[in-house]
């Protein structure tokens, strides 16, 4: 089950950790993604703070963390193949975090309603 933020990240609960990625809507808006920067394992991410830069042919965008906690894994595949975010946004997780705190999230239905506005 994925939940969503107003800034178009998705969060997927993995038990003790959560994975974070970019929504299908976000990747479509950005266009072809050519570069992704990721934090290092062991870094701390904070709710509402940027943890990654995603560069597409259109723009550079920051990705904001929906959780606060320690990064336990990063999807290194994205560093070589950033286009995976375009191809399979819901498999292309960016970071896995031991989340101590999570911001208020939307269900998929709520998010789909939210992006219609």
């Amino acid at each position, binding site marked *: 089950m994925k939940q969503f933020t107003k800034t178009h990240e998705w969060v997927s609960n993995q038990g003790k950790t959560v994975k974070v990625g970019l929504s299908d809507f976000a990747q479509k808006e950005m266009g072809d993604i050519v*570069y992704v*920067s990721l934090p*290092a394992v062991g*870094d701390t991410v904070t709710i509402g703070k940027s943890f990654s*830069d995603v*560069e597409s042919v259109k*723009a*550079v965008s920051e990705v904001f963390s929906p959780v606060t906690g320690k990064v336990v894994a990063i999807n290194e595949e994205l560093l070589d193949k950033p286009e995976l975010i375009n191809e399979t946004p819901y498999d292309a997780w960016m970071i896995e975090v031991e989340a101590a705190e999570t911001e208020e999230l939307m269900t998929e239905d709520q998010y789909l309603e939210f992006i219609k506005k």
Partner: protein
Amino acid sequence: MSKYTPHTEQDVKTMLNTVGVSSLDGLYKDVPREIFQKELKLPKGKSQYAVEKQMRVLAGKNKTYGSVLRGGGIYDHIIPAAVNALTGRAEFVTAYTPYQAEISQGVLQGIFEYQSLMCALTQMDISNASMYDGAQAAAEAIVMCCERKNKALVLGQVNPQYMAVMRTYCNSHNISIDSISAKDGLVDINTLADSIDADTACVVAQCPNYFGLIEDMKAIADIAHVKNVKFIYIFNPVAAALLPTPGECGVDVAVGEGQPLGLPMAYGGATVGILTCNKALLRRMPGRVVGQTTDHNGRRVFVLTMQAREQHIRREKALSSICSNQALNALTTTVYLSLVGKVGFVEVARQCVDKAHYLANELVKAGAKLKYKTEFFHEFVVEGDGEKWNKILAEQDILGGMPAPDGTLWCVTEKADKETLDKVVIAYKEARSI
């Protein structure tokens, strides 16, 4: 009103009225009167001929030498006449940085060829379009390498001017610089691993180092990488023709001064900085990269391929403010390298080594002592104060070695002939007998 004077008197009046002052002076009322510049005491204008004459008198006060045996960062090499004949063309000399880059295909091709040559020379993955000079390239390299960590470790005998520029740059980036002194002239490889701590982002070393000595750059790179820090290699492009290349040593960033490649010494500038790196650092590299592609008709064309966008659209996040490059001087190095060719370039480097070693050996035979016993490229330190020695040489139109701690630093390039070098040895004996 000419079109170069944007404001009419009426414009000025309207603006002054808007801010509520009566005259232009009113805008400066907060500036203390005593520091106001009164009317400049400039002489009346002179004719072109009179100015030329006066400039010649001034230029005549400069002391120039027929032979230069001094280096220390700027080197006296042969510049084939064709270099200036080509780079002096108006199309090159008058071209400003191409804002609409792709319309200036000639400028882009020049940069592309420069990058290709620098990658061939260093065997690194990527070269940018060039920097101001070697010292600036070294400072920018440190900023590139400081990701999440904020300390650079400078090893051994690095050019003190580079050190000063690195400190200035890093100060405003909140990066601290520690230096570890050399042992017997070289980087102390045995203690290097222990000197690297958790905050160290990168280590920096120069080869040939400031005193001309050849460092084991591969060993330094290996230690740096075991300790998970990056390694910046400050190289001399002429020496790179003979020594293991930065790419072979596995370094992360290789920077150097491009002046030895066809540029005059010109009092130390303007020169050109070489900055090359491995693929992993591409997005952290300052400046820009020109690439080759094909247009819709299938013709070979050149485009700006890569430039950190932060420099234009998110400036607060930019690692560097360098967006342009030193195009004319980069082109000069390109023309120079193309003219001398691979074989000729290796020959230049070989002659530097041979002639420098000839002088060093002859001096040793004459009783001089070399300060360091290890292998050198084209510079070496002779023990003792060289003042009298240099004075004798100056009378023979030869600029001798540069004062260095406990000695003089000599440099011999392919330009030196045997006659000159023998004069240096005779002058040495003479100076000793005074």
